[in-house]
């Protein structure tokens, strides 16, 4: 359609030079719908924007995050391992971020422990047991779960999970466990849909071979399908964990944000993200507290890079 139009319009143009420019010149190269160079330009720009964004964020966070060590002279070691976080104390303020690092990692691991079995089970159900029904019903359900905003998960956690834990396990209910449960439910759909994809990618010949030597359905799933999908299942779980690690809002509402080191999963705790979101607005730019919060952000970024390295490593091993 586009070509027809330009063909019809060209002869009626009065200035021959202009029409030449339009047909073969620079303008043409970027106005024609099927132009090679225009498409290439757009794609190259998108790709480089992406790279620039990642590099810029990393650089910015590094510069900001190192301020507390370079300018405010905080000790890196005592920042990472210290257990006392009292930035407001008038004499002798202390910045020990270990409880938050611990809290973040604990919430992440616990939520993976909660989510992984359910998610993998769910994936097996929809791919192996009820192929048609699973595809038609379970897939949309999972997509709806993905679409629910994290604040809703937080609210449900605050009004259902926290009172439940308080009732049955004592304490205030605001706890590591509450945070892990909420985040575990949040990452469930992510893990389930990726796990389902990886189970689907296991070739049918493997299953047929298994049935041919007389294996039951369960034996096929347990002995053949899961090992074959193995490392991509782990990738799915690690991806879910990296999402759990970065979650701030829902965790903040239920985890209690206490700055001490928790001694059990029923104790309140704080994570890197919750401390940043709680204190950032109250601190002034360039103050020690503000710089220390940026350093927490840097630690967060570094740990999520580690997650990505793990995922790359796993997917490489799968290909080999």
């Amino acid at each position, binding site marked *: *359609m*586009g070509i027809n139009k330009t063909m019809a319009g060209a002869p009626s143009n009065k200035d021959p030079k202009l029409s030449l420019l339009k047909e073969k010149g620079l303008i043409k190269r970027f106005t024609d*719908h099927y132009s090679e160079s225009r498409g290439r330009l757009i794609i190259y720009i998108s790709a480089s924007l992406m790279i620039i964004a990642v590099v810029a964020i990393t650089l910015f966070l590094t510069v900001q995050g190192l301020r507390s060590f370079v300018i405010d002279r905080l000790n890196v070691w005592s920042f990472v391992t210290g257990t006392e976080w*009292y*930035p*407001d*104390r*008038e004499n002798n303020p202390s910045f020990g971020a270990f409880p938050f690092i611990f809290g973040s990692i604990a919430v992440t691991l616990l939520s993976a422990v909660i989510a992984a079995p359910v998610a993998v089970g769910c994936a097996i159900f929809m791919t192996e047991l009820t192929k048609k029904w699973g595809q038609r019903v379970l897939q949309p359900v999972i997509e709806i779960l993905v679409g629910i905003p994290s604040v809703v998960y937080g609210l449900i956690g*605050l009004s259902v999970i926290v*009172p439940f834990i*308080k009732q049955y396990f004592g304490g*205030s*209910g*605001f706890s590591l466990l509450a945070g892990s449960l909420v985040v575990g439910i949040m990452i469930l759909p992510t893990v389930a849909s990726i796990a389902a994809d990886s189970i689907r990618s296991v070739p049918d010949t493997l299953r047929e071979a298994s049935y041919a030597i007389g294996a039951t359905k369960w034996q096929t799933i347990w002995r053949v399908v899961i090992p074959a999908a193995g490392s991509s299942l782990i990738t799915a779980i690690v991806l879910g964990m990296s999402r759990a690690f970065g979650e701030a809002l829902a965790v*903040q*509402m239920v985890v*209690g*944000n*206490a*700055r*001490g080191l928790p001694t059990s999963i029923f104790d*309140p705790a*704080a994570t890197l993200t919750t*401390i940043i*979101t*709680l*204190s*950032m*607005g*109250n*601190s*002034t*730019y*360039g*103050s020690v*507290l*503000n710089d220390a919060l940026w350093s927490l952000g840097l630690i967060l970024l570094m740990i999520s890079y580690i997650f990505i390295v793990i995922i790359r490593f796993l997917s490489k091993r799968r290909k080999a």
Partner: protein
Amino acid sequence: MKKKSFLATALFLVLSFVLALGACGNGSGSGASGSDSSGSASSSSSENLSGKITIGGSTALQPLAAQAAQDFMSKHPDVQIDVQGGGSGTGLSEVSAGNFDIGMSDVFAESKSNIDASALKDYKVAVVGMTAAVNPKAGVKNLSKEDLQKVFTGKVKNWKEVGGKDVKVELVNRPDGSGTRATFDEFALDGETPAEGITQDSTNTVKKIISEHDGAIGYMAFSYFTDDSVVKLSIDGVEATDENVASGKFPVWAYEHMYTKGDPSPLVKSFIDYMMSDEVQNGAVKDTGYMPVTDMKVERDAEGKQTEK
């Protein structure tokens, strides 16, 4: 064909976005002109102001500033005032950097070490009283300041030690740097650092937690004590009321500040004058749960020293 339909969708999206924006603009415009009819009589004498003011910072002061800005804009239709949140720290930083015309803060600029307070002009637009909020099951209505400090520093772990029922104490704190926390620590706890406990940012969440957990104690502004779900604690037998704050008997209160960088422009000045006028001080200030500065019989400087006016 596919590309075309994509382009058409994109265009449609952009168009609908523009329309939505336009509709928003219209909405606020008509809202302002609607309320104008009531206030036009008083504003007809004032000079014609126009321009834009950006206000931001303390979320505690935000509702009052938004209310006053709404009224101000309906009197001066050519003035556009944006009221943003962000927290006291953001307010002070941004006004120092010149990005906000007015920075709102719950704390004195002097208390933030890296803010050049001498470059900022302080306008105290309201006063807010705060006190401890206790779960009714704890069975206390009054504590001496000494006992209150013992509760918050973790030396008292059960309410029966300070005359309450046999219920465990559960602390609910505010995040570091929060104005409410700074005020409560300084004037109720005399600078003691509170022991560990749950930390929550929003006052509504704090109130919900205290009302639902037996033995919980936290602190919040007077205006949030609207029902019986939490007990408004008296300190040293002095009831936590606006009158006692105004007379200087009740110690836990703070100014709500509006800061400008240097002397404000005429437009900003006229808005601040409007904030300090009797119309706002006795109207919006009281409506949003604050106390007018003009009622105060005592005043306080940046070091926390209290003097008779």
